[in-house]
């Protein structure tokens, strides 16, 4: 899968004087997690974790600040959704205009109109979506396979980033439906 990648980052970390007596590597590790986890970059995607520190430079002390600045090189794991990419994920929420699918650190929206070729109705009582003619059901906890068709990553506010999905293509949809379809196909071939 292309969605996750390991990248190398070099940046400066400011270590406050209060933490100077601790083991510097673990302090820097803490600060890196604090600084970089969940950070979104348009080009590289979202940093979901620091893997390893490769190099810690000399600790520089600049005028007017008691803190020590380190140039650190480290590897991090990033999550980067791509357009047209096929993703699988769990439905985490059903709302009246569609479903939210968790595809990793971010949730993507699967709109009502993009679920099946059929017309979907919202069943408020059971929190699920039902196909008007096919009676196909989509509810929380279902695993789906979908394609990313819209991508809008916001560097400043990662929470407001939007990812749009579609399942209106062959062999996309809830994994349950695909299984049923496969079974039907097999039966057709055998029969």
């Amino acid at each position, binding site marked *: 899968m292309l969605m996750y990648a390991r990248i190398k980052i070099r940046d400066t970390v400011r270590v406050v004087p209060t933490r*100077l007596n601790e*083991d*510097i590597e*673990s302090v820097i590790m803490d600060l890196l997690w604090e600084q970089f986890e969940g950070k979104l970059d348009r080009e590289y995607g979202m940093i979901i974790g620091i893997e390893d520190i490769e190099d810690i430079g*000399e*600790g*520089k*002390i600049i005028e007017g600040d008691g803190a020590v600045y380190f140039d650190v090189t480290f590897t991090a794991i990033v999550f980067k959704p791509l357009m047209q990419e096929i993703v699988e994920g769990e439905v985490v929420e059903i709302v009246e205009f569609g479903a939210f699918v968790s595809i990793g650190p971010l949730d993507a929206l699967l709109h009502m109109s993009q679920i099946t070729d059929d017309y979907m109705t919202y069943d408020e009582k059971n929190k699920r979506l039902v196909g008007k003619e096919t009676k196909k059901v989509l509810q929380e906890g279902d695993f789906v396979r979908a394609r990313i068709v819209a991508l809008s990553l916001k560097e400043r506010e990662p929470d407001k980033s939007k990812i749009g999905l579609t399942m209106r293509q062959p062999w996309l949809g809830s994994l349950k439906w695909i299984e049923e379809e496969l079974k039907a196909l097999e039966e057709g071939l055998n029969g």
Partner: protein
Amino acid sequence: MKYDNLLDKYPIPKALKEEIKEELERLNVNKTTAKKIIEKCYEAYLKNLMEPGEAAGIIAAQSMGEPGTQMTMRTFHYAGVAEIDVTLGLPRLIEILDVRKNPSTPMMTIRLTEEYAKDREKAREIANKIEATYILDIADVATDIRNMRIIINLDEKAMQRKKLKVEDVKKKIEKGLKMEVVEEDGKLIIQISEPSFKALMDTFDKLKNIVLVGIKEIRRVIVRKEGDEYVLYTEGSSLKKIMKIKGIDFTRTTTNNVYEIYEVLGIEAARNAIIKEAISTLEEQGLEVDVRHIMLVADVMTVDGELKQIGRHGVAGGKHSILARAAFEMTVNNLLDAAIKGDVDLLRGITENIIVGQPIKLGTGDVELIAKLGGRR
């Protein structure tokens, strides 16, 4: 001699070494004691060294600037016993630092070779040879308007003093005016062919400016006995011409015109001349400035082999930074020129960074601190 080996190891200036050696020899101590003394001297020497990061230029500027405020604005003074006018005080100092090509009172100190230096008559002879002599110095000149001629009444005594012959004078005038000169019972007569009063007066003016003997630039020569030799002091200066004259010891002859020294003797000589002139000007005013400050100034003026003034056309004007130049003189012009050319200021120097409000690379600002912490892999 026996202390030489001990001293050799230490990187101490030669002059200081000599001083220590002299003192050691006077005390006549043994080797171990000498070693200890030298070690102590070296320690003291190190303590007196300038530390890296010290603002040497600023200290030099202050050390010369503060006494400068106390200098008299009175410009003229008679230098020592010799009754020659010399610019002194602040105007002279400015003259030196501005590297004026024509200082207001050029002056030379000429020393003679052994043969001439001891003998008053011979020294006088050279003095006469170099002093510019004009017709008015040896004769009365009258204009005869009716007959359109100039009559030169030669003064025999003066002629004798200058060791001049009538024919020589005649030849010189003929060459200078490109006119015929007639000798008539001890008088020289110049006949103007053109019947014009203006032509007569022009010729008269020209005549007055003909140098009969000597060097044009040397207006006056004074012979003075200094120790056991005669020394010539001149008003006006021309090092190049003077150095060619027989009987002059050019190794000990000098001028107070720094630019002339630079042109004739080169940049190192110019550097020494700046130091000598500046320090003597300050000393004459009773101000004590350490030579090293002046040496720094002289070094800056001469580093690139070219004699540069301290100022817009020299050291200050040659700075790379636009802001530093603008801070010195002609702020608007400098900034405007830079803007038109699209110049870039890299903010490498001191002045620029002060203007911009950044820490400067000097003293504590030039120190780069590194935290030495454990836990490095």
